[in-house]
């Protein structure tokens, strides 16, 4: 069997690229190192009877055009909404956001009538901002330094789009690109826990605190999925995030793509300045005129190919590209639901998220720990209980809890050890037990994943969940490097399609789709 294209890495972006190429009639082979596809979007039965979305755990950014083009619902994709976010407060009270905007406003009014009012206008502004960025997400980034007609056209299109926003929205967008989320939110709100909970979206996956300039962009990135105006339009995939990958994989197969697991690629084979195939760890060689890497930029440029064969400015740029993994994950198998002191008993809150973000200071202190090389003693946590939405994920009466934790720096003082991993897990459980006292005794099993574990298992360098930080200097035409942001590489026939390219980050699929479009346009 011969192939037109080999996709390295069966993460969701690689699978999207594979599906689009196969849909266009190409014979495609996807090679996945692990025994299952999905990359960081996998569901695994970590403990008997308990299935976890081991890494990435919620979804809202998946591009609607991909769902449509690949007919993902037909291939098993089912998104179940997350209904609320509850933030336990230090005074024993809580701050909740519900699916119904009116209910949310009433809840916020309980804490601050001014903020309740501001919520309406803020929601409208963020909606406009998300709409303003939307066309950019679907755009192959033009190179502003180039005078090629296609780049000039792209820049003109971008300029026209920016002008069409009008001055007020352009200014708001500029602020989001440059400010800290705490300052940005401070212009709208006064109630500190509300600012903290909203600003948490600005630090996820990023080595920044809520008061660090640049964090407001990450906030916007996470708002892109919230364009229907709900407080938090995030959802679960039935069966865990792995079922998203599986749906995309099935779509690709339905178009004729082949997926091989347990097939780790060691090197891309080149002949002159052309890619001609890959060689696996096993030594097996597979030929194809087109090779697409879904891995992050470091692996794509420094490991899969010989950097000596690449232009030095590209190699320098990739070496400088910031990964700095900052988050960990704790997955718990529970004998019973956690009982939160601020909202006792079992209720609708368990069908949503719990955010451990009682104040901006709390988040900032968590960041300070990481800045100096320690994991946060009292970390920020985003907690969901998928078994409440999809009972199939745990045995009857039992539950699975997914805890996204920040900060856990990849570069820990003295390095990560088994003891440090357990200490980190203890910090998470102890902190959470302060808010839900029955938690500790309800734990049947616990899986703790540090950035080093995330790197080892998923291959994401330094455990960065976005395949490279979403910092301003690493976005758009600079993602991953100037002149090489259009999915091509200096090696003919070798392309990139991972989240390390524009627009990157989250279960979005946009990088994979744009890469496929570019490849098809080039042929």
């Amino acid at each position, binding site marked *: 069997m011969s192939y037109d294209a080999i996709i390295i890495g069966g993460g969701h972006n690689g699978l999207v690229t594979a599906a689009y190429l196969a849909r266009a009639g190409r014979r495609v082979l996807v090679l996945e190192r692990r025994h299952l596809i999905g990359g960081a979007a996998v569901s695994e039965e970590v403990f008997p009877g308990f299935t976890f979305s081991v890494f990435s755990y919620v979804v809202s950014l998946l591009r609607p055009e991909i769902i449509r083009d690949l007919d993902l619902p037909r291939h098993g994709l089912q998104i179940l909404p997350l209904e609320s976010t509850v933030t336990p407060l230090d005074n024993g009270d809580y701050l909740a956001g519900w699916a119904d905007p009116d209910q949310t406003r009433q809840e916020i009014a309980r804490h601050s009538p001014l903020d309740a009012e501001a919520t309406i206008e803020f929601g409208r502004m963020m909606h406009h901002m998300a709409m303003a960025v939307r066309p950019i997400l679907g755009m192959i980034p033009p190179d502003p330094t180039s005078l090629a007609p296609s780049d000039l056209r792209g820049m003109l299109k971008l300029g026209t789009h920016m002008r069409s926003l009008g001055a007020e929205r352009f*200014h708001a967008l500029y602020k989001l690109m440059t400010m800290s989320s705490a300052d940005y939110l401070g212009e709208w709100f006064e109630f500190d826990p509300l600012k903290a909970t909203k600003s948490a979206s600005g630090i996820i996956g990023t080595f920044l605190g809520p008061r660090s300039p640049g964090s407001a962009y990450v906030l916007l990135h996470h708002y892109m999925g919230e364009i229907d105006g709900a407080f938090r339009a995030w959802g679960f995939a039935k069966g865990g995030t792995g079922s998203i990958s599986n749906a995309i994989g099935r779509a690709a197969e339905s178009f004729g793509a082949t997926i091989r697991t347990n097939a780790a690629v060691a090197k891309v084979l080149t002949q002159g300045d052309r890619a001609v195939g890959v060689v696996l760890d096993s030594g097996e060689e597979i030929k194809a005129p087109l090779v697409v890497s879904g891995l992050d930029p470091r692996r794509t440029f420094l490991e899969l190919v010989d950097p000596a064969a690449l232009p030095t400015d590209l190699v320098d740029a990739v070496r400088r590209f910031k990964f700095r993994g900052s988050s960990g994950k704790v997955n718990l198998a529970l004998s019973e639901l956690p009982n939160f002191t601020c909202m006792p008993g079992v209720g609708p809150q368990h069908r949503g998220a719990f955010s451990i973000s009682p104040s901006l200071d709390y988040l900032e202190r968590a960041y300070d720990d990481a800045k100096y090389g320690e994991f946060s003693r009292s970390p920020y946590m985003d907690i969901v209980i998928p078994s409440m939405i999809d009972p199939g994920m745990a045995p009857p009466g039992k539950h699975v809890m997914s805890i996204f934790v920040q900060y856990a720096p990849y570069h820990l003082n003295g390095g990560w050890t088994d003891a440090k991993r357990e200490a980190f897990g203890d910090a998470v459980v102890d902190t959470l037990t302060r808010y839900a006292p029955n938690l500790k005794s309800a734990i049947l099993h616990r899986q703790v994943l540090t950035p080093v574990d995330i790197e080892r298992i998923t291959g994401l360098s330094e455990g960065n969940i976005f395949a490279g930080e979403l910092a301003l200097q690493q976005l758009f035409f*600079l993602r991953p490097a100037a002149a090489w942001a259009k999915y091509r590489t200096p090696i003919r026939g070798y392309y990139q399609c991972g989240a390390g390219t524009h627009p990157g980050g989250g279960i979005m699929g946009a990088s994979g789709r744009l890469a496929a479009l570019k490849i098809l346009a080039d042929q």
Partner: protein
Amino acid sequence: MSVPTIVIGGGTSGLVAAIALARAGTKVILLEAGPGFGGVLRPIEFVPGYRALPMAGDPGWFPPEVARGIGLGLPEARDPVARIIAPVDGGEWLEIHADAKATAENLRRHSPADADAWPGFAARLHRLAGFLRTLYVSAPPRVDADRLDEMVGLLKLGRKLRSLGREEMVEVLRVVPMAVAELLDEWFQSDLLKGVVAADAVTDLCQGPCSGGTTFSLLHRQVGSDPGGYRIRGGTDPSALVTALVDQARRVGVDLRTDARVSRIAVDDYRVRSVVLASGEEIDCQEVVSTLDPYRSLLELVDPVWFDPALIHAVRNIRYRGAVSKVMVALDGLPPLPAGFDGRIALAPSIRYLERAYDATKYGRLSDAPYVEVRFPTIAHTEFAPAGKHVAVLHVQFTPYHLRDGDWDQLRDTVGNLALQVVGDRIPGFTELVRDRVVLTPLDIERDFGLREGAVSQGEMMLDQILFMRPIPGWSQYAMPVNGLYLAGSGTHPGGGIVGASAWLAAQAVLGGRR
């Protein structure tokens, strides 16, 4: 007799605006609240016989375009011996000179790899800062331009960016939003060198070196550097600059008035009518050009009824966040210093030290171990102290204006002691020389110099508060929504550290507004 134009504030901005307008044939009255001119560059006799210019750590770069525009000779070439030094263990000094070769020569003793990297770094900074330089001698580009002539600015900006060449164009766009800590990690190894350069970047900011956008601040301070050189802040003599400006203002017929505090700008039907002084005197005028900060100018001097609530909201949201205290010290002599030294001592042993010093401000606290910068104004100006005696000015950062607990009137001595302790620990022989000291907290700086929150920048120089965002988005062209009212101080583009540029550009806007 024609109706005059009133300029408020007798600092360098006010003087430049007044001169520019008077030279264009306008009758100008310059109103200064205090007894003398110079604004933040005003000398203080803090102890009988001892004087200092506490706020003159960086009088700023004086663009030749502005000097020419107001008919002043170019400012004197910077003192070639000015340099930044930092103590290294064992009585040695790390030195940064304007001249890259001299710097590299010194660095070779401490870190050979860094010595090799320095000339390339300085040259790169100079070229990237050169891009900002072009932006700083014209009004900010208008992003809301809808007429062709308004778009010229944007097009010029694009052309200038392209003229940098591909590599440096990318580099400008890449580094500007970066944390200076990241930039320095790309270039250097020595913690001390990185600390000293990072301190230059965060001076007068309420940001640490790990905050995004602090590389912009480094470039901002390098605007005006010589090709291949590093601009040493504080290289220009502030007293000479103020004297030259006052003389020129007199020569071109500006009516200079001191002790004339403005209490109100009277507006009639969306047009300025007059200025009312604290004394009760009312002066009719055709325009008012205020060099005070935007908050004071717009929300305290003008009845807010004339402004859109959105504008008021935006002005209230300008971040000032002063975080600097100054300690003026009377000394019995100078501690041991490198031969021929003039300039500053930077006590920033590492990026981490600076970042920790900044962390305290996030929680409304004073740094336990602040960044301190030391100048000895008496090296160049022996007349600032009795014969044989000296003066040191300590710049102490971070001491936030907004304290969570306690107040500045109680913490004044704490800051003074802390700063002297930091200096005493690092500069042997200093403590024994201290005779007396006077501390200026951010609150004192606000009271004494009229700087809101004690911030010399009149609005923190961070990416979201520069160019078309300065002083507030949508109103960056100096003219305010009340006819005849203009802003001209550091709170407007290009902001603090660029002498007279805001004022010069505001004066052009006043003259253009009459057409």
